[in-house]
């Protein structure tokens, strides 16, 4: 089923020619997506899978099929880069790198909604530090 992913205005504005999305992902990640057998190993081992709108294997499928709505997906931002998928993928595809590439595609176009400075003191007390570290990492690449 074509999954409904809430659209983000800015992200939706990013334009790709046919085949450009795969090309850019492959360029940034250094991974060959066409080697994927769609076996679902990455999804079944993913600790965040229950909250993702697209599963990691769907993300790969969407990129191959040139569906740029994949960039709107929560999945890229939920990925905690734990590398479980990369470790167990029978095709030796580093899915974590692919997630990072997708984030970079967005971030390099200066689309970033996280603003650590604007978090209130109260929020800072509540949010675990690791979340900030993770956020910084995603922004740095």
């Amino acid at each position, binding site marked *: *089923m*074509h999954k409904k992913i809430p659209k983000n205005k800015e992200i939706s504005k990013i334009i790709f020619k046919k085949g450009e999305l*795969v090309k850019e992902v492959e360029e940034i990640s250094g991974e*060959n997506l*066409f*080697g994927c*057998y*769609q*076996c*679902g*190993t*990455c*999804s*079944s*081992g*993913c600790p965040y*899978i*229950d909250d993702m709108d697209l*599963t990691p*294997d*769907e993300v790969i*499928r969407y990129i*191959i*099929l040139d569906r740029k709505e994949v960039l709107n997906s929560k999945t890229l931002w939920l990925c905690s880069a734990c590398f*479980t*998928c990369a*470790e*167990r*993928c*029978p*095709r*030796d595809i580093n899915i974590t790198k692919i997630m990072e590439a997708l984030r970079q595609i967005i971030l390099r176009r200066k689309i970033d909604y996280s603003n650590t400075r604007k978090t209130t003191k109260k929020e800072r007390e509540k949010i675990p530090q690791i979340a900030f570290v993770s956020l910084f990492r995603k922004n740095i690449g």
Partner: protein
Amino acid sequence: MPSKNYNQKMDHNQGIPLEDDYFLVEPEIALLEDKVLESETTIQGITQIISKKKKRTIDADVLIIGAGISGMQAALDTADKGYKVVIIDKTSTIGGSMVKLDKTFPTNDCSICTAAPKMVELSRHPNIELITYAEINKLEGKKGEFKAQIWKKSKYVDPDKCTGCDDCTEVCPVDVVSDFDEKISTRKAIYIEFPQAVPIAYTIDHKNCTGCGACDRVCEPKAISFLEKSEEIEVEVGAVIVATGFEVLEPSELRKEYGYGKYENVLTAMQLERILSSFGPTAGKVLRPSDYKKPNTIGWIQCVGSRSLQEGFPYCSRVCCMYATKEASIIKESNPEIDINIYYMDIRAYGKDFQQYYDHAKELGIKYIRGRPSNVYENNDKSLTVKYRDTLHGKINEDKIDMLILSTSIIPAKDNKKIAKILGIEADENGFFLQKSLLDNPIQSTKDGIYLAGCIQGPKDIPDSVSMASGAAAKAVGPIKDRKRNIGRNFPPEMNVSHEKPSIGVFICHCGKNIASYVDVEKVTQETKKLPNVDYVEHVMFACSEDTCKKIRDTITILPDKKLNRIVVAACSPRTHGGLFQDTLQEAGLNKYLFEMANIRNHCSWVHSDDKDKATKKAIDLVRAAVAKVSLLEPLSEEEFSIIPSVLVIGGGISGIKSALALADMGIKSYLIEKETKLGGRLKHLYSMFPSDTKSKEIIDPLIRQVNKNKLIQVMTEAELADIDGFIGNYKGTIQHKGKKKKIEFGTIIVATGFKEIDLEGQYHYGDNKNILTQTEIEENIKKDTLKKKPKNVVIVNCAGAMDEKRPYCCRIGCGVSIKNAKLISQKFPGSKIWILYRDMRVFGKEEEEYYSDVLKNYHITTVRYPGEKKPKVILDKNNPKDGLMNVKVYDDILEEELEIPADLIVLTVNTEGEILTDSLKNMLKIPADEGGFFLEAHAKIRPLDFATDGIYLCGAAHYPKNIVDTIAQAEGAASRAAIPIMQGKMKGEGQVAEVDEELCSGCSTCEGICPYNAIEVKPKSDNKDHFIAIVNRALCKGCGACVGACPSGAIEQKGFKTKQLRVMLEALLRNEEKYA
């Protein structure tokens, strides 16, 4: 084939005489020097050590390393041709991995039941010297003159004296983890691998034996000798066949996320085979290891370690999909309440009848779930939680299962690399041996004179291994073909027992648990003892084992006061085991027709497994009937006939060409007939070959030149077999050759007629638009360079006309071809977008999977998986249907949505069927074919190259479509099979033939028309020209009995099934009816 007749008697079960003490092993000498000097045996031992004898040398023709099913087949094929074979195995028995299996797919034949007769045949063959518990140390020399050093480890048990009584294991205090049972059970330090082991003699495991002597004390025949030494044997041979087999991956390091070794209820598939086996640790009951309870749910994870670019091996293990299906079906059939899930990526049901077998498994209720679990957790109750993404339903699920089976990859035997070094041949990075040329010469290793058979050059199923083993036997004959041959075996002269009163011996088989669980064997024995003329009754664990055969011989020859003159064996089918027992009779000097079998396994324990009482009663009845018949049996003789030393090869494609060349290498003449104007078959139309991209013409052209040059091969193109008459060894055929009729004579026939693409009958608009092509057409276009316009979007549709209601089978080669052609199109038109629509990607085995993965990555090919019930639709342009842009609508199974792909070139991977010649050959040669027009072999597993009719053999795509590697292996294998009768020179006919009573025969010719083998001719009587009578050709008659039933005058009787012999059987059965009524 008629039963074999060997010239020389040699009992191979005696192993090698223990005569030499040239080599010493430390613990033994320590034992001698230290303590036990006084004892008599020790002094003997020391004397033996002091007198250093010369090393034993065996002069043979072929050395075979490894005695699994491949090694055994190669040995029998070579030895049947008259050459002397030495076969070694590193374990104490022969049989290899096949005997560990419970059943075999896709026929569910019992594995040991099909392998055991071969094992016994091998051990009894006069031309085969069997050395078990031995390894090769060194190989010197070159093709034609190899010198090998064999290290034969001591078994510390004298095989001549050992009776296999099992007393020793009861007292042995040492438990050792059993390798045969895949580490799920233990054996003792003195052991036998399994009940039907050949040779049937115990072995002391030197490493684990404590030397307590308990076994020695209880051994009645005094077979145990701690002083026996290992010995080095020198073997001189002309060729070597390597068949060291495979191992399965133990995923305790690689893929440890599935918990193997950590969680008790996670097993490898091989371990499950042992659990399912009737002589395994649970005697065939499905129990999980943690609590020995029956599991409610069982799961299989496929591709554990296979198809893995990391944490495993890159190749596909080729057999796992089918063995998982087999194991699951067997369990489900007998335990419908057990839930079964198989987690897979692609189900590779690629072979003959495999797809139907898989469909049947789905009907049984086995759930196939497309999704590969990432890891497994153990619960408190020792069950396991498997989390996976069901990729066809887009859901993340968790299943709780009681027992988890891992279909782990097939890996080369661990010491393969060592063996490669010893032999001087090359192995690949995984440890599989390399071929000299994969597509051209797959059996030849990288060194001349050394040939490969079975799984050592890549994973393989049993029929492919067996074909390749036969092929290796053909190749191995090349270097030694001019050596002296020794055919047959002289049995002792036959005793004349016709004047004696019948004295019957009855042997009743337990068949392990196969019969004994369902039939009260003891009761059958007691009832049989009461029958008239029965002087000896015994029930035995395995009637087909060598020790029972010895017992039968002994009761005939040396039983003191009453020598038996008729034998009944109550066991399984005479079709599989009759010949074995008949040989046994002959060895004891008794005519082999004074024998009868009662099939109490198939007819009692199998069909009445739910009612032991009635099964037992029926067994008693059957044995009584057999005893009644055997009393009336008479000794019969067999007609001997000679063999015309040439072969007719039908079909001039790669199969036929390779067969003819292999025959020529063995020095045998052949006629190669081809209906087209040129040799080469389908390869002539193709551009390059999967999976090595070798150009077809580089393979076929040199072969055609070789064939045309070879003086032993007579090539006839534009030729067809018009008529044939005769029988094995003596065929007379008429060949329609370029409009002329030509008569030729030959001894055997190889059918290599190949296959063709089916007629799609307009499916997928094939024929409507000129840009819809079949794979063959696209390849011809690439070859001739006639594709000019660059296509933007190419859609390849796999399984066109395959796996549907009309043709339920998989074409085996289509997936590979589609990948290869996708690559060819990409190379020709860089930038073209290529889509492959597939159902399951069946690129099985070594090389193919790697090729597939490389092509996907290098050419960015997009694959779409579609379900069988929703076939892709081709939509033509309304305005320009013949040449316009098309659209393909396909339901993507994984995305669960319909895609619409524009296409300016569509390539259909069309299903295949047998060649057009199938029908006429079927009738002319009287050989069967299946619905797809592919010929049916004699046995799907162990006789893939033979027809049930003697003298006719099968290879290549006429059997089933297959890639070129398997085709060549089969072609050379068929050549080996067809060469056997020719190299034997003479054969014997059937003894149980029809016999005409000339007085009663009216010469009405009814029988002449009805005989399926053309064995009857009506001729005038020799002394009375006016009286016509039917005359039976005893060499042709198969003893089918059709004429007997048809004769209106009751003038024909069939020997061995005479009316009076059958009447007493019926009387015996009916008498029982009254008793129990």
